[in-house]
């Protein structure tokens, strides 16, 4: 059988060669960035190079970049820093990393296309301040982009704090923290094509954040613990290498997949909304997402269903539920998707569809 076709970039992007090189370079450095001696300084140089790379890619100052162990920690740190004294408003389709960090938050419903209506946010903010608004720039399951600039303007007008979970958007669509005016913005290294184990929180200039982990005062007292230099170096290199212009090359592949599946009776969740160029959330009416993911895997095509938990089981998706849908599979093209990705995917999908369309069983396989 041919090598599997990996179409699960929103779970993890394949490692970029630039990131791989940076990781290897960092692995060979013995020093701790906090050490006084030359080895420490060499390690520190690599750390600060990564900080500069992240800062310049996402429009912030190096001093306002806090490295974390990943996107989940970056989101948790932001909410930990901004929540005191504020009521929290979340989009209904936020990632579990945000939902779990703000268990008492108010959830704002989204439109059927998955976007948040600015009027809904405006009305919610009229009901009481001070408030913290947490919104994802792009949804991990559907790729749907909120009208973030407009929503950020509403937050500013009300004086509400804004945290943006940019884990999926970063590197795939243009993103500028300063222009957006968010208070904090979360990134994840492995979603950019870096290694797993590092993320970053970008801060509005001058914003002071209390650490979740105080430790030895690293990251200017905002995140304790010796920095995982290889992961951070890889994150920096991946951030520098991840160009939205390059990601845009994936849109025609994605569109070809969707055109084929739509013609065969599938639906695209959030299909009418602005979306990431690489993500498609496909619903085959009557077919459980779990069955589809397994069937495609057995055919050598690796996609995921909305909400895979750590055990690997497929549960119901709160994102699709918020959009009044269910049972989607997520096809997310990686930065290095082969040119024949659409042909290979549609061939496997088509074979699966024929098998799932056996007569007399229609309706018996509705997703839970």
């Amino acid at each position, binding site marked *: 059988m041919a090598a599997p076709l990996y179409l699960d970039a929103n779970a993890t992007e394949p490692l970029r060669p630039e990131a791989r090189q940076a990781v290897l370079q960092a692995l060979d450095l013995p020093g701790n960035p906090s050490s006084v001696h030359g080895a420490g300084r060499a390690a520190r140089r690599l750390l600060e190079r990564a900080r500069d790379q992240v800062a310049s890619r996402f429009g912030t100052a190096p001093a306002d970049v806090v490295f974390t162990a990943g996107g989940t920690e970056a989101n948790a740190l932001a909410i930990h820093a901004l929540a005191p004294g504020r009521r929290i408003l979340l989009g209904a389709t936020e990632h579990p990393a945000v939902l779990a960090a703000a268990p008492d938050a108010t959830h704002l419903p989204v439109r059927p296309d998955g976007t948040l209506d600015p009027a809904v946010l405006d009305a919610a903010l009229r009901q009481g301040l001070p408030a913290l608004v947490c919104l994802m720039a792009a949804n991990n399951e559907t790729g749907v982009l909120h009208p973030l600039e407009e929503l950020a303007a509403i937050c500013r007008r009300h004086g509400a704090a804004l945290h943006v979970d940019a884990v999926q958007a970063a590197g795939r669509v243009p993103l500028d923290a300063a222009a957006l005016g968010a208070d904090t913005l979360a990134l994840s290294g492995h979603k950019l094509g870096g290694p797993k184990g590092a993320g970053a929180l970008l801060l509005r200039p001058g914003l002071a954040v209390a650490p979740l982990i105080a430790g030895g005062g690293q990251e200017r007292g905002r995140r304790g613990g010796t920095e995982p230099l290889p992961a951070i170096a890889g994150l920096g290199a991946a951030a520098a290498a991840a160009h939205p212009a390059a990601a845009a090359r994936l849109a025609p592949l994605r569109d070809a997949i969707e055109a084929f599946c739509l013609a065969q009776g599938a639906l695209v969740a959030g299909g009418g909304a602005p979306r990431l160029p690489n993500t498609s959330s496909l619903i085959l009416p009557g077919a459980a997402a*779990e*069955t589809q993911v*397994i*069937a495609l*895997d*057995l055919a050598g095509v690796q996609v995921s269903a909305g909400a895979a938990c750590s*055990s*690997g*089981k*497929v*549960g119901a998706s709160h994102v699709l539920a918020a959009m009044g849908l269910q049972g989607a599979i997520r096809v997310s093209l990686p930065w290095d998707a082969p040119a024949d990705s659409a042909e290979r995917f549609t061939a496997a999908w088509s074979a699966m569809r024929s*098998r*799932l369309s*056996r007569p007399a*069983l229609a309706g*018996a*396989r509705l997703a*839970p």
Partner: protein
Amino acid sequence: MRILVAMSGGVDSSVVAALLVEQGHEVVGATLQLYDHGAAIQKKGACCAGQDIHDARRVAEVLGIPHYVLDRESRFREAVIDDFAASYARGETPIPCVRCNQTVKFQDLVELARDLGCEALATGHYARRVEGPGGAALHRAADPVRDQSYFLFATTREQLDFCRFPLGDMPDKAAVRAVAARLGLAVAAKPDSQDICFVPEGSYDRLVARLRPEAAEPGEIVDGQGRVLGTHQGIGRYTVGQGRGLGLGGGGERLFVAAIDAPRRRIVVGPRAALPQARAVAGEVNWLVAPPTAPLSVQVKLRGREAPREARVAWDAAAGLMHVALAEPNIVAAGQACVVYDGDRVLGGGFLRAPALAQSDIDSHGAAA
């Protein structure tokens, strides 16, 4: 061929997967997540807890086969756990393993297997599937101690055609463990599963009380003449034939549960000799042969742990009921299965009906129990 193997994480289904891999089949492993194992995490020896999923995954890794965890929590709750509690609330003794086999396992997994392009579903059940001119037949396992054919009676003929039970010919469990050890499976020495997988040890009554509060309401314990002998803390704690937990004390003859009167929340007790019945009625009947048009001399099993006993069975197709005349009177607990055998072969079976129904039926036939 491509075969889906239901892997529980125990030694039996692990050996099934390993044997099929050894035979050169393309094996796909699937493990059902049936309930929140966090709630039952302390439990040892019952199937499908968190550790079992982990074990199944490890075995699949060792075998080099794809493996998937299937979330069936809501399906299992509706089809098995709710039915379990409802059965107790009706004064019956449920048999959840049959319900699980009937729904989550053979109905759903056969469907999934077909969806995945598999040509068969294999499980670790101890039963034999014998190809015959009229399709596949279900037989008792070679090892009478391990035989699970009783729990498979509700498998439809179509499902049985699609299923494989590679352990049916194993002489005993030691042989299965030996295969596991030969193949280097870490689960070779894992303890057998016991009890009911979703019930924390020994306290199913709390689960029943939560789902069906009426089964936990106190009531009277009466004798056959209706005399009140004591009180009980819910009919959900009792099973026909049970002798313990009645709290009647006294020095008289030892008493047993003879019947459960759910509408009046009464437990009817009597001496051991008064319990056995000569007749029984079963509904929800599944035939694995052409339904008989005349009474058959067969053997029946009325509970999992007993040998088949001689009986005559008559099938009332119009009412969908199976009438059983036992050669030797036996305790009949409604909700348990009555499985019909011809020697080693399973002919069919049904769920035993409440004694009241059986009684009126016997009256209408003019025969006294």
